[in-house]
C-alpha cells in the first residue's frame, strides 16, 4: 500500500491550516471553515458505513450529539481537559456504533434505517429529561479565551476540526485500500454471497459501524465549545442526518474522495447561501440537489468525472 504520499498530503494540509491561523484574523472565516470541516468528518464517517456497506444510517444526529453531550457532561462534572473530552466523545459514540453493529444482525435495509432514526429520538428524549446537562433548555459553556499558542479559541477549534477531517479522510482511504475495503464492498453488493465466500461479514460490519460512530462522536465533542450554548434541538438536528447522507451521495459513495468533494461543495454552498439568502432556503437547496443526484447521477460527482475522463480517452 502506498501510504507515504497521502500522509505527506495530509501533513501539508495541516501545515497550510496552521499557517492560515497566523495570517487571517477574521473570526467568521474560522467559524464557517469549522462547520464545513465538521461536515467533512460527518460525511466521511457516514460513508464508511453507508457508502462502503450499503447500510443507510439516519442516526448521524444521535452519534454526533452523544459525542457533544459526553463532552458537556465531562466539562460540567469534572472540568476535564480538552483532549479527554475529545477522546471520550469518540469512545462513547464508538460504543454506540458497536451496539448498532450488532443490530445489523437482525435488521437489514429499510428496517435498519428506521431503527437508527428511532434511536435518535429515544436518545434525544433521554437528554431532554436529563437535568444535569440542562434538559430541554440546554446549558451554556464558557470557553477559555485562548488555547496553546493560538491567539483565540476559535482558531484552536478550527485546527482541531482540520486534524479530525484529515484524520477521517485518511482512515477512509486506508480502509478502502486494505482488504477490509474489499470485504465491505462485498457486503454492499451481496451480503449473503459474501458470507458464503467466507467474508467475516458481521465482524466487518461491526468494525464499520464502530469506526463510523467513533468519528461522528469525535466531530461532536468540540461542538459545545464551538456553539457555547448546547441544547437538544440543535445537537440532534435532522439537518445532520440529511447533510451527512446527501454529501456522500452527491460526491460519490464508493470512494473516500466522494464525501470530501460533496462536503466541501455543499458545505461552501450552504455557508454562502446562509449569508446571502436564508438558512431555510439553503436547506431546500440541499434537499433538491440530493433528490436530483439520487435520481439522475447515482454515482455522484466523482463517478461523473471518471466517466468523462474515460470517455475522452476512448
Amino acid at each position, binding site marked *: 500500500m502506498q501510504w507515504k504520499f497521502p500522509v505527506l498530503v495530509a501533513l501539508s494540509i495541516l501545515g497550510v491550516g496552521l499557517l492560515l491561523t497566523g495570517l487571517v484574523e477574521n473570526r467568521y472565516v474560522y467559524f464557517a471553515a469549522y462547520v464545513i470541516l465538521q461536515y467533512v468528518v460527518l460525511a466521511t464517517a457516514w460513508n464508511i458505513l453507508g457508502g462502503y456497506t*450499503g447500510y*443507510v444510517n*439516519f442516526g448521524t444526529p444521535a452519534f454526533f450529539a452523544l459525542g457533544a453531550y459526553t463532552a458537556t457532561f465531562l466539562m460540567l462534572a469534572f472540568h476535564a481537559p480538552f483532549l479527554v473530552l475529545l477522546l471520550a466523545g469518540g469512545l462513547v459514540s464508538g460504543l454506540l456504533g458497536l451496539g448498532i453493529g450488532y*443490530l445489523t444482525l*437482525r*435488521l437489514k*435495509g*429499510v*428496517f435498519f*434505517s*428506521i*431503527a437508527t*432514526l*428511532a*434511536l435518535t*429520538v*429515544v436518545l434525544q*428524549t*433521554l437528554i*431532554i*429529561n436529563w437535568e444535569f446537562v440542562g434538559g*430541554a433548555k440546554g446549558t451554556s459553556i464558557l470557553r477559555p479565551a485562548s488555547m496553546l499558542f493560538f491567539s483565540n479559541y476559535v482558531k484552536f477549534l478550527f485546527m482541531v476540526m482540520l486534524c479530525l477531517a484529515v484524520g477521517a479522510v485518511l482512515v477512509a482511504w486506508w480502509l478502502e485500500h486494505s482488504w477490509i475495503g474489499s470485504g465491505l464492498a462485498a457486503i454492499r453488493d451481496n451480503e449473503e454471497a459474501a458470507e458464503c465466500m467466507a467474508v467475516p461479514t458481521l465482524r466487518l460490519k461491526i468494525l464499520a459501524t464502530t469506526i463510523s460512530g467513533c468519528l461522528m462522536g469525535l466531530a461532536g465533542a468540540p461542538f459545545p465549545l464551538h456553539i457555547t450554548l448546547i441544547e437538544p434541538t440543535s445537537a440532534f438536528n*435532522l439537518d445532520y442526518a*440529511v447533510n451527512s*447522507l*446527501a454529501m456522500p*451521495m452527491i460526491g460519490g459513495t464508493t470512494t473516500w474522495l466522494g464525501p470530501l468533494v460533496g462536503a466541501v461543495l455543499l458545505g461552501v454552498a450552504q455557508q454562502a447561501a446562509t449569508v446571502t439568502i436564508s438558512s*431555510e*432556503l439553503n*436547506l*431546500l437547496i*440541499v*434537499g*433538491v440537489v*440530493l*433528490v436530483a443526484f*439520487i*435520481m439522475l447521477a*447515482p454515482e455522484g460527482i466523482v463517478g461523473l468525472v471518471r466517466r468523462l475522463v474515460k470517455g475522452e480517452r476512448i
Partner: protein
Amino acid sequence: MFSMELLLNAITAGMLLGGFYAAVSLGISVTFGLLDVPNIAHPVFIIAGAYAAYAMNTAFALDPILAGLLFTPLFYGLGVVVYRIYYVSFEKKGEQALRGLVFFFGLLFILEVALSLIYGVDYRLVEASYIGNSVSVGIVGISLRLFIPFMVGLLLTLALYLFLAKTFYGKAIQGVSQDSLALRLMGADPIHMKTIAFGLGIATASLAGALLIVIAPVEPAIGREYIGRAFAIAVLGGMGSIGGTLVAALILGVAESLTSTFSGPSWSLAVSFGLLLLALAVRPSGLFGR
C-alpha cells in the same frame, strides 16, 4: 398521584388517540407494508394535509375534516405522481431498496422546508364548533376534539379494510404484495395496481392531516415525531394488515397516554420509538405478522 379516575381517563384518552394514530399509520401500512415502498415521507404528507385543512379553514371557515375529505383526490393524484417517479427512477431498475429510501428521505426534507418557507415555523390551529367541547360519562371526560378524529379514524380503517377485502382492486392490491407474477398471469397489471394503492395511501394522509390539526396545533417539523409512531404501528401491526394496524395503534395510544399521565409528556415520544426499536429487534414480523 395515582387514582382510578386518572387511570380511566388516561386509558380513554389513549384509546381515542389510538383511533387517530390508526388513520396516521394506514398510509404506511399500505405503501410500506403491502407495496414495500420505503415511504418515510408519509408523515410530511400528513403535515401537508393538515396545512391544506388549515388554509381552507382560515379562508372559507370550512370544517377541517370536511376539507381533509375534499382534498383526498388531490393527494391521490400526488401519490400517483410520486409513485410514478419512484417507479421509473428506482423500482424499474431494481435498485429501490436503499436509493429509494434516500429519495423519500430527501422528499420528506424538501416538503418540510417548503412548508416552513410558506407558513413559517409557528404553530397553526383550526377552528370548529366541536373543538374545546367535552362530554362526561361517569368520571371519564371525553373531549370532542379527540372523539371525532377517533371516529373518523375508525371509519377510515373500516373503509380501507372493506376496500382491500371485498373489491376487485383491493384483492389485486393484496395480490401484488404477495406474488406480482401471478397477478400478471391473471391479467392485471401489477404496476397499475401499485400506483392505485400508493395513491390511496397518500390520500389517507389528507384526512389524517385534518384530524391531526383538529387534535393539536401543527408546525412543519412535527411530522418527524410521526415517523417513529407510524412505523412502529405498521411494524407492530404486521406490515400491511389493516386490522393489525388498528390494534397496534390503540395499544400505542394507550401506552403513550399512560406514560404521559404518569411520567410526564416529555417521555411519551420515547414510548413509541422505544416500542419500535423493541419490535424491530425482537419480532420484526409484528404482532400479527404473516
